[in-house]
C-alpha cells in the first residue's frame, strides 16, 4: 500500500444559494497522477481553492500527510443554508492561509494563468524560493545571506534548464507565448519544493499536439521531482493517457471514481460529461 498524501472528507462549499462542492471525499496517494473531471461548474476549481486555503470550506476537512490541515463546520447563516448530513461533524475549526499550506508542501497552478507580470522568468521562479529561505529582512538587506541567495539562484537556474526555459530566463513572464507561460507556472510551483502539485486545466488553450507534449512533460516532472499530482482537465486524451485514477464531479457531487477505463465506460459519466464515448 502506497502512502496516503491527501485526504478530503465530506468537503462542502456554499456560495449564497449555490452548493458548489457537495460532500466531496477523495484521497491521493504518493506518486499518483489523479485527475478531477466533470462538467463546467461542477465545482472542481472550487475544490482546489478549498484545499489550498483560498476559500474556507463550509464543511468538511482536509488532511495532508496524515495531519489535519483544514476543518470546518457551518456557522451562523451557513448553518441554515447548509443542510448536508455531515453538518455536525468537524467541530474543530482549522484554517490555514494559502501561504501556510504552500509551506506544508502543496503547490498549485491557476485556471487563468497568474504570473508576476513585471518580473522576468527567472525572478518568477526565484520568488517561489523565498519561502524555504532562512533569512530576515536585516540579513537580506545587508547581504549577510549571500550564500543562501546564491544557492536559491543556482537551484532556480537548474530548474529552468530542466524545464527548457533557460533561454528565455530574462524575458518578462507575460511576453512568453501561452504554452511557455503554462510551463513556467508549473515550474514556479515546483520551485516551492512541493509534495503535492495541483494543476488546474494545464492544457487549456493548447492544440492536440501541444497537449500531447504536455502529457509527457507532466509524467516527466512527476518522476523527476518525486511529486504527486492532482489535476483538473477537460482534454480527455490527456486525462485517460496519464492518470492513474479519476474522480468525476457533477453539481458538486462525486458521481464516479476509478481507473481511466472504468470511467470511460461509466454510464453516469458518459451521460453527464463525456457524451458518446470519445472516438479516435
Amino acid at each position, binding site marked *: 500500500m502506497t502512502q496516503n498524501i491527501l485526504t478530503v472528507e465530506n468537503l462542502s462549499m456554499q456560495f449564497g444559494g449555490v452548493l458548489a462542492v457537495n460532500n466531496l471525499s477523495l484521497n491521493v496517494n504518493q506518486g499518483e497522477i489523479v485527475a478531477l473531471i466533470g462538467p463546467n461548474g461542477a465545482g472542481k476549481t472550487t475544490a482546489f481553492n478549498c484545499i489550498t486555503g483560498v476559500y474556507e470550506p463550509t464543511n468538511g476537512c482536509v488532511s495532508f500527510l496524515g495531519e489535519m490541515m483544514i476543518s470546518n463546520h457551518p456557522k451562523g447563516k451557513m448553518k441554515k443554508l447548509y443542510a448536508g448530513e455531515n453538518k455536525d461533524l468537524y467541530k474543530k475549526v482549522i484554517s490555514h492561509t494559502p501561504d501556510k499550506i504552500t509551506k506544508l508542501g502543496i503547490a498549485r497552478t491557476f485556471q487563468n494563468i497568474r504570473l508576476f507580470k513585471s*518580473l522576468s522568468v527567472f525572478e518568477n521562479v526565484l520568488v517561489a524560493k523565498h519561502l524555504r529561505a532562512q533569512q530576515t529582512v536585516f540579513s537580506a538587506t545587508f547581504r549577510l545571506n549571500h550564500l543562501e541567495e546564491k544557492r536559491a539562484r543556482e537551484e532556480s537556474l537548474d530548474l529552468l534548464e530542466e524545464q527548457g526555459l533557460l533561454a528565455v530566463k530574462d524575458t518578462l513572464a507575460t511576453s512568453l507565448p501561452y504554452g511557455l507561460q503554462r510551463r513556467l507556472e508549473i515550474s514556479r510551483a515546483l520551485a516551492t519544493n512541493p509534495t503535492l502539485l495541483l494543476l488546474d486545466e494545464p492544457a487549456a488553450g493548447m492544440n492536440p499536439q501541444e497537449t500531447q507534449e504536455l502529457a509527457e512533460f507532466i509524467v516527466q516532472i512527476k518522476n523527476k521531482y518525486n511529486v504527486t499530482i492532482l489535476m483538473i482537465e477537460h482534454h480527455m486524451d490527456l486525462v485517460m493517457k496519464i492518470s492513474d485514477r479519476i474522480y468525476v464531479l457533477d453539481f458538486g457531487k462525486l458521481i464516479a471514481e476509478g481507473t481511466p477505463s472504468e470511467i470511460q465506460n461509466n454510464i453516469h459519466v458518459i451521460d453527464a460529461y463525456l457524451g458518446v464515448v470519445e472516438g479516435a
Partner: protein
Amino acid sequence: MMDKNKKILISISLVVGLFALLFILEQVMPSSSMLFVVLKKGAIFALVAVSMNLLNGFTGLFSLGQAGFMLIGAYTYAILTIPMADRAAVYQYFDGGIIGFTLSVPIALILAGIIAAIFAFLIGFPVLRLKSDYLAIATLGFAEIIRAFFQWDVLGPITNSSNLLRKFPTFSTVLYPFAVAGICIFVIVLLINSSYGRVFKAIRDDEIAAEAMGINLAKQKQLAFITSSFFAGVGGGLLAMYQSSIQASAFKASMTYEILLIVVIGGVGSITGSVLSSFLFIASSEWWLRFLDAETYIGSFHVPLMRSGFRKVVFSIIIMIVVLFYRKGIMGTKEFSIEGIGRFFRRLFAKKKEAQ
C-alpha cells in the same frame, strides 16, 4: 557586465566626488543662494519620495499616509531636541512642557524613525487588509487623525498643542541632509534589490499568486509599511531641521499629494526617478518660477498675466503637461545606473571610432 569590484569602486568615487562638489560649492557660493535651499529640501523630499515609492511603487500598496508619518518624525525629533533653556519660550502656554531632557541629534533622528514605525505597526494591523483605494483613503484618514491627535490640547505639555515647535537644533550645511538622506536611500535600495524586494514586487503583481508561492501577505505588507514609515519619519525629522520650526497643521494631505506627484513624475518604481524629480520639483516650485509672481515691466511694457498667484497656475500646467505627455514619468521603471552610463559612453566612443 562590469565586474563587481569595479562597480563598487566607481560608485564610491562618485559619492565622494558628489560630496566634494557640494563642499566646494558651499565655499564658493554665497550661502544665501537659493541653490542650497533646493539642495537641502530636495534631498529631504527625495528620501520621503523614495520611501513612498517603496510602498506605492514596489509593493503596490496605495498608501496616502506619508505626511502623517513625517509629522510623527518631525515632532519626535523636535520635542526631544529642544534645549532645556528654550523650553519655557516654546511651550509658553504650557509652562515649559513636561519633557525634562534633551537628546542628541542623531539619536533623536533615529527615534523619529522608530516612533513613526511603531505607529505604522499599529495602524498597519487593521488597514493593510484593505485593497487599493480603500487602503489609500484609510491611510489618508489616519494621517488626519494623527494630525488632530498631535494638536490635541491635552497633549499640549508634550506637543505644544497646535502651536509652533522651534528652537531645536538645525543644520547649516547642505552636506548633512545629503549624508542622512543618502544613507537612508542606500538602505532602501539594498532592500529593494534583496530577495525581500522581489517578494514585494510579486505581491504588487498578483497577491493571490504570491500567496500561493508561500508568501505571507500580512507579514510582508506590514514589513514594507513599517520600513517605509521609518524612513518617512527620519525624513520628517530632517524636514524639521531644515525648517527650523514646525507645526502639525503643515502636514496635510496636500503634502502627501506633493510627494506622490514627485514619485509619479519620477516614475513609479524608479528610485533614481524619485530622487531626480524631487530636486526638479523643489527647484521649480521654490525657485525657478518665483519670478512669475512679480509684476514685471520690460522697459515700460507691463508683462501681462504676471502677478501674484501666476506661478502656481503655471506650475500646475507644467505638472499637467508632464503627466499627460510623459505618462511613465521621467524614468519609467528604469534606473539610472553606472552600467547605463558606461554603456552610453561606450556607444559614444564606438561611434567616434567609426567616424574616424
